[in-house]
């Protein structure tokens, strides 16, 4: 869920050929409804569901394999291979498993398979990002009967059902000694999911056929051809040409045009990916931040970002409405928090910060910077939708309140290493959340701590003991309504202190032939089971 790459890659189709906008010939109608041809923007690199924690791989794994808990389009937890779950004791979770489920090769699904899967997670050779973190809290697995399994944890741990939606279950018999190559060849890509793999051509396409014995809703197509078309303009063109029935990652610049096309339909939903600014909290009050100087380019001798008034001023100076409308073409929702409305632990009364340049100037003066200072804002230019353009807009907005901003945008590969070493004073970055506010807060606001496993993505190095303590308490609370209230309070605390500057949450967009309909997913995953023939519109 987290690692989708939504790059705005240079020139898009709309910019190149807007002259062709009219007079498009008739497209082939959905006569071949038995095969669904999908075009995805991010390459899928492995069919091993436990090799690399990466969105495009997870989307395909979700078509083949299943998890104990699932999420619906709006990221709410749903029963999957488990029908129900509860904490039978403060440190024991019990999951009841679905009866009568079979793997593609006929092997029955039981608690043994769950235990086997959890054992494999930390033991996948060469994995660049393993799924071991989702089983970290489990100290002991107890198989009560073939359809009941218990997980014992060291301390009360409310997030276990949430962790389980990242763990795709494989078969103890089929996958004993399974290797990543075995999965990649398609031979071992055997799960309980709605689609079985027919052929995998690495970097090109994956061919699926429907699993006729699937326990859930029957898949709507006989076959699925899942193709990787990484160039944005080419993907859109292939949809217009009728070579693809369905595409993801629609570039915002083509959006207006595709909406106007009678033959096409758009599906969209507010996502879970927050775009925000991280600020330098690593340098102390009387230290120089690496890219901040006074107006003459001399070191300031202090880090203005340590003053909450300065952080508030920078926050108030941003016109989020303008960014959303002009740069994102409406495909974003301004926000002051991590999660969109309707998800667990969203704070209804925490509104996006009001645009107030005058107030921002007053706060700056109050903090002792009546004439502002100079700062550099760093940003990737190939990672998030319109990332570099957003950074440039913010640079102008900050300059207007007297904080003269130089924007430096570079490719993600070089940006991210320096961001992680806290070499920037201000940086633009994104975060794809699990639908629980503890997830982003643990990772990007909590103080870095190897012991707790927190703050590994805290690139501004924000550190607030009161915040950490409150978060810790919430993670020991098993009563969901109480925990949700606690998480809301913690989010208000972070917003009050401007730990980060949230900008907007991206909208996820898919486009398809009008003969199809799609359940848009907040988690950005593009999966064939979410597409069906359209009921009459």
């Amino acid at each position: 869920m987290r690692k989708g790459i939504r790059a705005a890659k240079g020139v898009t189709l709309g910019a190149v050929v807007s002259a062709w906008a009219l007079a498009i010939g008739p497209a082939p109608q959905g006569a071949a409804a038995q095969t669904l041809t999908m075009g995805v923007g991010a390459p899928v690199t492995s069919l091993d569901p436990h090799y690399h924690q990466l969105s495009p791989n997870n989307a395909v794994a979700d078509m083949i394999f299943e998890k104990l808990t699932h999420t619906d389009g709006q990221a709410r937890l749903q029963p999957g291979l488990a029908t129900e779950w509860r904490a039978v004791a403060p440190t024991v979770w019990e999951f009841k498993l679905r009866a009568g489920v079979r793997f593609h090769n006929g092997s029955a699904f039981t608690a043994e398979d769950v235990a086997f899967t959890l054992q494999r997670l930390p033991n996948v050779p060469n994995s660049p990002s393993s799924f071991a973190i989702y089983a970290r809290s489990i100290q002991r697995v107890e198989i009560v009967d073939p359809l009941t399994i218990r997980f014992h944890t060291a301390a009360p741990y409310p997030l276990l059902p949430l962790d389980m939606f990242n763990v795709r279950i494989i078969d103890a018999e089929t996958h004993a000694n399974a290797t990543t190559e075995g999965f990649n060849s398609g031979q071992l890509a055997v799960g309980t999911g709605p689609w079985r793999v027919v052929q995998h051509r690495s970097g090109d396409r994956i061919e699926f056929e429907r699993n006729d014995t699937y326990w859930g809703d029957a898949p709507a197509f006989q076959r699925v051809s899942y193709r990787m078309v990484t160039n944005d303009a080419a993907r859109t063109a292939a949809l217009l040409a009728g070579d693809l029935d369905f595409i993801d990652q629609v570039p915002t610049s083509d959006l207006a045009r595709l909406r106007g096309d009678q033959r096409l339909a758009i599906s969209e939903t507010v996502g879970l990916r927050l775009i925000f600014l991280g600020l330098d909290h690593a340098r102390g009050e009387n230290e120089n931040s690496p890219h901040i100087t006074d107006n003459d380019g001399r070191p300031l001798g202090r880090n203005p970002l340590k003053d909450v008034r300065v952080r508030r001023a920078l926050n108030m100076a941003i016109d989020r409405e303008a960014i959303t409308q002009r740069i994102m073409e409406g495909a974003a929702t301004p926000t002051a928090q991590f999660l969109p409305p309707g998800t667990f632990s969203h704070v209804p009364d925490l509104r996006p910060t009001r645009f107030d340049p005058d107030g921002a100037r007053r706060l700056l003066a109050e903090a002792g910077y009546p004439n502002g200072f100079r700062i550099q804002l760093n940003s990737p230019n190939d990672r998030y939708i319109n990332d570099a353009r957003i950074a440039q807009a913010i640079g102008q907005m900050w300059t207007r309140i007297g904080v003269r901003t130089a924007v430096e945008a570079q490719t993600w590969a070089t940006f991210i290493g320096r961001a992680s070493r806290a070499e920037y004073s201000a940086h633009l970055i994104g975060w794809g959340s699990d639908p629980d506010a503890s997830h982003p807060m643990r990772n990007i606001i909590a103080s870095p701590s190897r012991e707790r496993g927190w703050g590994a993505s805290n690139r501004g190095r924000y550190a607030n003991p009161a915040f950490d303590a409150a978060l810790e308490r919430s993670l020991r609370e098993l009563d969901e309504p109480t925990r949700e209230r606690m998480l809301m309070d913690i989010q208000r605390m972070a917003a009050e202190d401007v730990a980060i500057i949230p900008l907007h949450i991206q909208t996820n967009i898919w486009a398809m032939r009008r003969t199809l309909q799609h359940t848009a997913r907040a988690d950005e995953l593009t999966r064939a089971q979410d597409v069906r023939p359209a009921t009459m519109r």
Partner: protein
Amino acid sequence: MSVYLLRRLIQAVGVVFAMSLIVFIGVFAIGDPVEILISPDADQIERERAIRALGLDLPLWEQYLIFLGKALQGDLGRSFVFNEPALQLILQRMPATLELAIAATLGAIVIGLPLGLYAGLRPHSLGSKAIMAGSILGFSLPTFWVGLMLIMVFAVQLGWLPSTGRGDTVEILGMRWSFLTADGLAHLVMPALNLALFKISLVIRLTRAGVRETMLMDYVKFARAKGLSPFRVTFVHVFKNILIPVVTVTGLEFGSTIAFSVVTESIFAWPGMGKLIIDSINVLDRPVIVAYLMIIVLMFITINLIVDLTYSVLDPRVRLEGK
């Protein structure tokens, strides 16, 4: 001859070795692959495990020595993202790229040579002027834009050709080829044309310049005076003499088409090596980047050798031993 080949071989080994060192250090300097590959919510323990798993906890010189040791046994490392041997990954995708490069180069010769000849023989005709103007377009239009225009016209507007992908393939000798099926050929036309456009223009210009220069030579005048047919003059005496620059350039162009058809391959979603290398660079998949560049170096060395050997066939005055 064999002395010459031996000397070339020793040179090649030196170049490959130097290249491996440069590439390895260069790739090392770009950035940290773990930062890119790791899931953002991985904790510190998981990050440390990933660094060890990818062998990135060792100092650079140790990583290089390990790489060198394995490379001598034919193992260029495992891809970080595919978890498959890098060499195998690249070779798997080589047929797709080779097919495209061969089609484009053949197209360049088949179309470029006759047009260039015509333009050289009748420099003042209207047709020649049109050809020369067209070749300027072929040079100056960016591949990216031409590719998209081809798609818009032939796939979206007219619906004659498929817009993306490789189509049906036939397996021969364990490799997939698409030029043997109708569907595969249809998929091949646009990307090949897109790649060939620049080369066609190049061949036209080289041929025309060569023809115009050669036509004024004494031996051509003499051949004419002798009463040889214009056909024989053109295709034996002139043609043979203009081929040397054309062969050189086509050979080198063929190499760079194989190595750097990145733009065309990504626009047409052609699953070749160019697409692999650009995806690998984006995620800093170091073993694949290094292996790819090593293979490309080897390929250029081979192509240069073949070009040199061809000279000696075309022009007996070129002696391979002489230095």
